[in-house]
């Protein structure tokens, strides 16, 4: 299989070399102000009705017959550029685009080529425009792209104050979250109140929900690609902000003008301030540091080094504390082997760890856990001819999982050192895909990804009398594996297909199919993951999760692309979805494999999305209807049940209005059906306790969730005449102060001080809600 794939790749490349009457136009497209590469710029040749877009590195290549062409470069928020070129040989055209100062004018004069929404083969993808995000209200004024992702169609949240999200019926761990290509295993700060992404350094972010390109793999439901800025390579800039929750600062500038630049940013919270517990000796904070350096040696060689680290630290006055954090590093080399063959080579590291500890002479302990990943990636794209663009590559990933080690902190501690065994995995992936223009109307993107996943030694596998018995655990034997020895290998072929059919007058139909395979599994028995959850590789007992998704959609632009509309329907079928037995013990369990339960999940839904990207009034509205079910042997007595994130109706609207250069107004409204939850069907007595009788899993719904947020941004007029640009952002979260349900728990009936009411036999249900109306002020600056 592997050899055939390589052979096919070579064949295509060789046949390409034979057709020589073609020339290639390529180059990088940048922002004229700061030199940042622009991703997704449309390059369009009206006479051929053909074009392309810049790739993730701002590079484009078009292979064309020799001749003279008018070429249009367009990008949202930038002035369109038109160049006429006589192409008699290969040409490199690097272009700088000016931001469109006229954006706030409503009048559109010229005819523009259709934008990505209609033309691109890719469907089920949303791009967050950071300029737009900045105009919208944010919790505590702290801009958080994850919260904006949660407002997209097809994306469901577990509740407010959570950084987890669920895409088209997938679990929270089925999203691959990348920062500069490096995976982030837990994107949360403060258990999800904020995410790890500091908005000041983000260039753009994209969410793929379906029709996922072959270059991505490893998770079932979505890819969230977050890219940070390269740093201004023309002049020095300092930006920052002082908020209610955190402050941040970023410094960027050229090292060698036009050739090399850097950006360094930091953010630190002062959460302690808002916590009720602030009066005690409790210290809670988080921080993020991003740094990036790039060197554009020449057009053919560009180097990037990106680094991120962030951490949450909680300390309580009784000497108990815990912390968690991510660290990622990316080295990237963009190389042009020829006019047509673009290469990106990356070396990536990612680390996630958490620690808990108690300082005490008798009960002192330290608990540590971490996950490390190292990967090498080679991604190539080859512009074969006007109608075919190939993408292919190889990814190698090694992972080390250290689920936990507990050790005593003093010699008088009652604890002994216990360590769960490490797990190792090696993952090879090869892919090949072709973007092929069949006719003026039909374009295809088809490909395949081959993943070879190995759980390797050193390690031991316990064999059990009954591997699913988590009460009477009887180990019958232990298999030992040496370093590097294969414990279990899973080979999967993942076909990918996307089709776009262009209808008349700015409309298109799209269809896609993808198979995704996931070999890293989050060990979480709750709805929203927490940082203390660990990950396991597919192993002797745990099979890879496999998802097949088909999606079809109708795409239409109105009024010269001012409005984009899409309607998409999907069906997703997941086999071996990872779940856990009722009452599973997922923390520090040497026999965790007895708790694994894998089964089926299926989801389908309809998503409507209307987006206005230009003009004084911008924003989007979406409605999603979806259904997500599961059936897992050993869970809910094997009967099918609603998934934890099965919220049937979701309606979101986000809008901004640029009144003038001074004032910008923003608003967001969200409505969704309540989250399913498990409530008691009765109670009983056992000793002094009165536990609930529980029957059906997720048999109830929390009340509906809805919330309105508002914001006003003030850009003082004096900014125009001085170097220091200030900006005030006033926002109100939960404007009409709804008590939105977070969860419900039960307890013995008692008063607010914890005194039992009645004879102690009565119970009550308590509704927890998080945020009342919350005003906040943020001051942003740039100089």
């Amino acid at each position, binding site marked *: 299989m592997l050899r055939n794939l390589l052979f096919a790749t070579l064949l295509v490349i060789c046949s390409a070399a034979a057709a020589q009457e073609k020339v290639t136009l390529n180059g990088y497209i940048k922002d004229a102000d700061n030199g940042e590469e622009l991703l997704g710029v449309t390059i369009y040749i009206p006479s051929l009705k053909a074009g392309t877009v810049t790739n993730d590195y701002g590079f484009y290549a078009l292979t064309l017959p020799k001749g003279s062409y008018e070429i249009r470069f367009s990008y949202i928020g930038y002035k369109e550029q038109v160049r006429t070129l006589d192409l008699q040989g290969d040409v490199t055209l690097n272009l700088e685009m000016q931001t469109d100062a006229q954006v706030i004018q409503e009048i559109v004069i010229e005819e523009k080529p259709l934008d990505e929404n209609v033309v691109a083969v890719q469907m089920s993808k949303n791009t967050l425009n950071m300029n737009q995000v900045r105009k919208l209200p944010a919790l505590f004024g702290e801009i958080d792209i994850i919260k904006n992702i949660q407002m997209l169609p097809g994306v469901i949240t577990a509740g407010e104050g959570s950084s987890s999200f669920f895409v088209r019926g997938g679990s929270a761990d089925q999203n691959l979250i990348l920062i500069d290509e490096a995976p982030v295993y837990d994107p949360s700060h403060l258990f999800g109140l904020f995410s790890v992404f500091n908005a000041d350094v983000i260039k753009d972010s994209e969410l793929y929900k379906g029709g996922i390109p072959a270059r991505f793999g490893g998770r079932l439901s979505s890819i969230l690609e977050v890219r940070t800025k390269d740093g201004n390579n023309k002049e020095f800039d300092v930006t920052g902000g002082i908020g209610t929750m955190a402050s941040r600062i970023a410094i960027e500038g050229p090292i060698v003008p036009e050739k090399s630049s850097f950006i360094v940013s930091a953010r630190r919270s002062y959460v302690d301030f808002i916590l009720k517990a602030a009066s005690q000796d409790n210290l809670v904070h988080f921080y993020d540091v991003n740094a990036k350096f790039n060197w554009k040696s020449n057009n053919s060689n560009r180097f990037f080094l990106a680094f991120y680290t962030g951490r949450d630290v909680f300390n309580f006055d009784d000497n108990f504390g815990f912390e968690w954090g991510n660290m990622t590093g990316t080295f990237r080399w963009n190389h042009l082997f020829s006019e047509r063959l673009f290469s990106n080579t990356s070396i990536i590291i990612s680390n996630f760890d958490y620690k808990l500890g108690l300082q005490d002479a008798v009960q002192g302990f330290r608990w540590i856990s971490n996950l490390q990943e190292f990967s090498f990636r080679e991604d190539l794209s080859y512009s074969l001819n006007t109608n075919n663009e190939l993408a292919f590559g190889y990814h190698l990933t090694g992972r080390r999982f250290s689920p936990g080690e507990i050790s005593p902190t003093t010699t008088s501690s009652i*604890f002994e050192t*216990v360590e769960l065994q490490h797990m190792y995995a090696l993952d090879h992936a090869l892919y090949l895909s072709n973007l092929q223009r069949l006719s003026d109307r039909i374009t295809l993107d088809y490909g395949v990804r081959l993943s070879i996943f190995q759980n390797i030694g050193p390690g031991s596998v316990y064999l059990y009398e009954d591997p699913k018995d988590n009460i*009477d655990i009887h180990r019958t034997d232990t298999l030992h594996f040496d370093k590097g020895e294969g414990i279990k290998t899973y080979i999967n072929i993942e076909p990918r297909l996307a089709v776009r059919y262009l209808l008349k007058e700015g409309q298109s139909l799209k269809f896609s199919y993808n198979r995704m395979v996931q070999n890293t599994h989050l060990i979480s028995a709750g709805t929203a993951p927490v940082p203390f959850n660990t990950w396991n590789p597919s192993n002797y007992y745990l099979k890879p999760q496999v998802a097949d998704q088909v999606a079809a959609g109708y795409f239409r632009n109105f009024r010269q692309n001012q409005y984009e509309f899409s309607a998409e329907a999907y069906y997703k079928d997941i086999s071996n979805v990872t779940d856990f037995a009722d009452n599973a013990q997922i923390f520090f369990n040497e026999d965790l494999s007895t708790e694994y339960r894998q089964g089926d999940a299926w989801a389908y839904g309809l998503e409507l999305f209307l987006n206005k990207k230009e003009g004084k009034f911008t924003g989007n509205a979406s409605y999603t209807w979806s259904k997500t079910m599961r059936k897992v042997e050993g869970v809910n007595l094997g009967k099918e049940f609603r998934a934890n994130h099965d919220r049937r109706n979701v309606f979101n609207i986000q809008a901004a209005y640029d009144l003038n250069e001074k004032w910008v107004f923003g608003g967001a409204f969200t409505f969704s059906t309540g989250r399913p939850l498990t409530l*008691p069907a009765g*109670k*009983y007595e056992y000793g002094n306790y009165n536990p609930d*009788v*529980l*029957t059906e899993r997720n048999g109830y719904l929390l009340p509906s969730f809805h919330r309105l947020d508002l914001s006003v941004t003030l850009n003082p007029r004096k900014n125009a005449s001085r170097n220091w640009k200030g900006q005030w952002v006033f926002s109100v979260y939960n404007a009409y102060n709804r008590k939105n349900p977070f969860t419900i728990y039960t307890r013995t009936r008692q008063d607010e001080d914890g005194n039992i009411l009645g004879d102690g036999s*009565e119970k009550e249900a308590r509704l927890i809600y998080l945020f009342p109306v919350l005003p906040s002020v943020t001051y942003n600056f740039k100089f």
Partner: protein
Amino acid sequence: MQRYIKISLLAIALISCEETTDLDLKQTPSKIVIEGLLTDQPGYQSVEISRSTGFYGSGQTPRVLDATVKVTDDAGLEFNFIHNPRNHPDSAGIYIPEVGFSGEAGRVYTLHVTVDGESYEASDKLLSVAPIDSLKFQINENEQDDPKEEGKFYELLVYAREPQDEENFYLFRYYRNDSLIFYNPSDVYYSDDELLAEKIDGVPSPVYYASNDKARLEFYSLTRNGYVFYNDLSTILNNDGGGMFGPIPSSPRTNLSNGALGFFQVSAVQEKETYIE
């Protein structure tokens, strides 16, 4: 140890508010609840049988007075249990042995209960329990600063040797002047020995005493089954509800057959008492 994870997750509670809400709950048929305890101490064996009620019910749940109850062991002995022989009003629903007996270490006991023609069975093994070496007490300064109950801020310190060559599970019961006490009504005090070293020197109690109190600690052996039951029970009693961060609530795994709730616990018991002076 895992309770520290639970404590950590409560950090979110620092910013949350809550209020009592009325739930419109589905009614399910009431279920049989069995609380069986068989120990190695004479006169300390009983089986209590009741029924579950609706969530919003008040007062004692209904007792079952007409069950047939017996215990057999793996040596072929049979012990008949009779309902509340002294007709004590507080003991309705409680069945005790017709002829007194004590459990023996190493024996497996099986409970047989029949109610309205339906049979329920459960088996558990009597494991030995390590003795408590001594009890001491000291003032807990945090509790003294802000006592939950006035004057009660002495904690018991437990000294014991944890046998390292076998897997042990324990249940603890604390008594203050002969009354069973809990710090919070939903607390379950139990442990496995997976992380425990041999020397247990001065582990503080989770409950507090006033001076002149009589403090007593009972130390029960549990089988792995018993540990699983109490661990599950503790999880649902202290659930964050609906499984937001914690697990989705689910009935404790029990050794009882036929859908009965509760547990049949067979334990060796050690006790130690001291006066706080």
